[in-house]
């Protein structure tokens, strides 16, 4: 073995030198590390602290309670119902299968719901609560709570969900809420972070949709500490949100329910306007649908049923449907002519049963003709030729102007989906939209509410209201928001000649109350409650000369969709009008037969506040009326019971 080398001399000195050099390099590196730590921990500490807080703290939104919707008497139309659901946390459950088995023994849960929950549970982190079943009965919740020790990881939670106690009766007005969809997000410009909450409920149609911002309220927040996996460690603090504002509608739920029930089996719309302030006491459309189906998420079958029904239950016909107003438009024609002075009320026009205008023969509904007929009789008996004549004298532009003045062909601003504008055609309109010249035949057609004229039941009710009052009545759906009353719908005087208006009302009175009036059979016979009105029957098909020669086919012999629309507009009491009612029955046949009785019944409900005496009905109708009233009362009582339970 070699002797250890005594390290002396040059190599030892070199080692020392190099050790020093190495030490210096190392010190330099340590200096860099120290500098780096100093710059991160002292100079940039605040930024990093912020990042750490962002990591750790999640801000969660607390959805506010949605505002409630009431009717004018404080009956809740849309409420937030407590909704019980079973939630399971996988990591607390131990044996998931076993626990679920025990749960299904207690509570009936469909297998597919269970499978979906299981699938979601396996996909999410074990600590995330997964909803197993929704909308449980209170009894089920009680069962789960009692058996809690046998059901580890399972808890019953309570949440709020929208419920419409009156369901079908208010579906078209109040609308419904549903979970916010990607489509909604792409369509609306709304930065509210609440919309980012999965399944957050927003208004989809009706008042729920149009007054979404009033009803929604604003989000509260809670700051929670989470770990890297997203598990919630604790809540740091919370700030409650502002609940949505309550809305009171002008609607009378009871009258609305009656109108819906009265129109059962028809495809129809009815509107009741309070003449004092324009309140919409009822806007009914039949058939209707159950809005609660949509809140829960509608099944494909229900959806197909609703969509394929030829009576179109989803359509809010009262405000959205437009129909040729038929003879109900004669008030417009007459008022335009009388106001313009092209004819005096007493002046007669000869009705031979037809009028020839520009080589076209226009027929009166009465083939034999009415003979010499003045304004009063023409309206009472709904003679067409009289209007063919006066319309030619006054011209379409004056008629359209009068129509708009009375609320036709203009859009009434109501917070419900798709309020129709209808159409009060004039020369400019035809030139602009159809690019054709206005022809005299168009005027003649329009004079009896056919041709291009279109109006909705809502517009017809407004027209009746304006004729009844002489004031500019604007329909009002929202009575108050958050207890603050909305402006009244009764506007200024329309500036129509009061004499002419009085004659008009008198004629409309005779339509109902004169033996030869077209709506005599649907009159109200109680003193001081009598009704004035006008029937209308509008064709939806062209009657050919050939058919006319053969004899016009009766409505009963036509397929449903080719029958005439039946219309009726009215106001009552004649002496001191309080309500205006318009009814349109799609393809109902004659206005006097199909629409007038409905309007009369609804009017009686409104006038007597739900308790009309039977002797207000014509004697022939009392049995039917009694039977109908009983049926509808039973139905309303049922709805009320349902509400008490909720």
């Amino acid at each position, binding site marked *: *073995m*070699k*002797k*250890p*080398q*005594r*390290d*002396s001399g*040059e*190599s*030892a000195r*070199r*080692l*020392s030198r*190099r*050790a*020093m050099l*190495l*030490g210096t390099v*190392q*010190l330099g*590196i*340590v200096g*860099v*590390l*120290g500098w*780096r*730590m*100093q710059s*991160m*921990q*002292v100079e*940039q*500490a605040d*930024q*990093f*602290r912020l*990042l*750490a*807080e962002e*990591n*750790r703290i999640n801000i969660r939104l607390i959805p506010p309670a949605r505002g409630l919707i009431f009717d004018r008497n404080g009956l809740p139309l849309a409420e937030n119902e407590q909704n019980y659901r079973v939630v399971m946390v996988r990591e607390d459950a131990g044996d998931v299968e076993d626990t679920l088995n025990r749960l299904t023994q207690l509570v009936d849960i469909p297998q597919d719901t269970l499978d979906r929950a299981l699938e979601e549970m396996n996909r999410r982190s074990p600590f995330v609560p997964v909803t197993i079943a929704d909308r449980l009965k209170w009894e089920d919740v009680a069962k789960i709570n009692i058996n809690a020790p046998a059901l580890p990881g399972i808890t019953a939670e309570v949440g709020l969900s929208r419920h419409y106690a009156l369901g079908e009766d208010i579906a078209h007005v109040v609308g419904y809420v549903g979970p916010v969809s990607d489509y909604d997000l792409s369509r609306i410009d709304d930065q509210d972070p609440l919309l980012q909450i999965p399944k957050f409920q927003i208004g989809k149609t009706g008042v729920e949709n149009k007054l979404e911002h009033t009803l929604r309220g604003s989000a509260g927040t809670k700051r929670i*500490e*989470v*770990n*890297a*996996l997203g598990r919630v*460690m604790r809540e740091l603090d919370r700030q409650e949100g502002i609940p949505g504002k309550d809305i009171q509608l002008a609607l009378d739920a009871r009258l609305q329910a009656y109108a819906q029930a009265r129109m059962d089996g028809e495809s129809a719309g009815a509107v009741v306007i309070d003449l004092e302030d324009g309140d919409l006491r009822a806007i009914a459309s039949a058939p209707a649908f159950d809005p609660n189906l949509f809140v829960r998420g509608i099944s494909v079958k229900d959806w197909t049923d609703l969509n394929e029904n030829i009576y179109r239950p989803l359509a809010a016909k009262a405000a959205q449907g437009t129909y040729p107003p038929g003879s109900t438009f004669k008030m417009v024609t007459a008022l335009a002519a009388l106001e313009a002075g092209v004819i005096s009320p007493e002046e007669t026009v000869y009705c031979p049963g037809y009028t020839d205008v520009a080589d076209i023969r226009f027929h009166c509904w009465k083939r034999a003709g009415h003979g010499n007929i003045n304004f009063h009789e023409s309206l009472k008996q709904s003679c067409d030729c009289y209007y063919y004549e006066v319309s030619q004298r006054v011209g379409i532009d004056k008629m359209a102007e009068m129509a708009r003045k009375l609320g036709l062909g203009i859009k009434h601003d109501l917070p419900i989906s798709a309020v129709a504008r209808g159409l009060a055609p004039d020369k400019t309109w035809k030139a602009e939209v159809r690019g054709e010249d206005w022809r005299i035949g168009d005027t003649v057609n329009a004079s009896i509410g056919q041709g291009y004229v279109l109006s909705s039941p809502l517009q017809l009710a407004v027209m009746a209201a304006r004729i009844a009052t002489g004031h500019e009545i604007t329909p009002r759906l929202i009575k108050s928001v958050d207890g603050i009353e909305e402006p009244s719908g009764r506007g200024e005087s329309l500036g129509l000649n009061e004499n002419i208006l009085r004659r008009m009302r008198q004629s409309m009175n005779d339509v109902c109350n004169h033996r030869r009036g077209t709506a005599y059979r649907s009159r109200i016979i109680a003193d001081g409650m009598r009704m004035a009105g006008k029937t209308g029957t509008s064709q939806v098909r062209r009657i050919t000369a050939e058919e006319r020669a053969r004899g016009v086919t009766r409505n009963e012999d036509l397929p449903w969709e080719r029958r005439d629309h039946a219309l009726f507009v009215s106001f009552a009491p004649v002496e001191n009008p309080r309500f205006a009612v318009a009814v349109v029955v799609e393809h109902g046949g004659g206005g006097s037969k199909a629409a007038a009785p409905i309007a009369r019944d609804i009017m009686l409900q409104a006038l007597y506040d739900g308790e009309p005496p039977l002797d207000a009905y014509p004697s022939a109708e009392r049995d039917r009326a009694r039977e109908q009233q009983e049926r509808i009362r039973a139905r309303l009582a049922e709805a009320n019971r349902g509400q008490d339970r909720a």
Partner: protein
Amino acid sequence: MSYLEYNAKYVPTGFRKLIYLNWPVILLLTAVACFGFLMLYSVAGGSMTPWMEPQVKRFGMGMALMLIVAMVPIWFWRNVAGVAFVVSLLLLLAVEFFGSVGMGAQRWIDLGFMRLQPSELTKITMVMFLAAYYDWLPSKKTSRPFWVLLPVLIILVPTYMVLRQPDLGTAILLLLGGSTVMFLAGVHWAYFATVIAAGVGGIVAVFESRGTTWQLLKDYQFRRIDTFIDPSNDPLGAGYHITQAKIALGSGGLTGRGFMQGTQSRLNFLPEKHTDFIFTTLAEEFGFVGAAALLSLYILIILFCVISAVTNKDRFASLLTLGVATTFFLFFAVNMAMVTGLAPVVGVPLPLVSYGGSAMLVLLVAFGLVQSAHVHKPR
């Protein structure tokens, strides 16, 4: 002066050796280890288990081993250096064939009572062997090409084997540690200059070739290098960890968020918080003050080792001491550079603080060698 004479005359014997131990280094090592215990207690959420208790036991065992190694005369260790190196190479080879796969790399052999990482052992035996080599080699031959080539092979063989596992961190440590011993032994600086120049040139050439027709690497290889150099290119993969580590470190501020109050580690945002990234927890909870304190302890250990080496007239002893000190330095410097975002993440633990058996035992045995050199130095 004869070997025996030198031994009898200058070297303490028996229990007197305890007095001649390098006590400051022992105290400093214990202080560093205590930092480790504290942090392991903290990252376990205020619990002795699962990390602190085994770590304390291992440290106790390691200190015992260190003292035993320190009591054995330094010339014995010089004489077994070659054998130790060959044994660790064989163990590395064994890992290749019988090793267990952990964390995606073959690193350790299960000996039944402990898991041995031959790569850890190699760091020390290589330094030992190189020190012995230069002790044996007449100093005038030090810079001759043939005698330079031999130690280069001594370094490259284990480096290559470790790289195959793959364990890039240890490979870098082996390469730098070995080169440092060669540098200290007095190999002419021109060799180093040449290697560094060639290395830099090579890297520049590879990067310059990117996008040209004579591109030296495939595109995906370049992209991998990009991610390696700048992890923020891959914010959900490698980048996530280093970003979270930097947030933890920076959010500690000057004085830290308080013991067991670090949100980054307590809420599991930190990766490997008990091993490679333990320094970030320390920095988060004790701030710059705590981090600087630990850094100072490390510097003091190096300083005492350098003093011991420079004052030691035994060439083997001083080369070995400096080699161990450098390896130790590389450990913590690379780790800290890694967690502060100055260097890519290569998987080097923080010495004596990170949770881990082999690394701690091997380091303490290495300090046993340093102690032996100190106790048995010619006086």
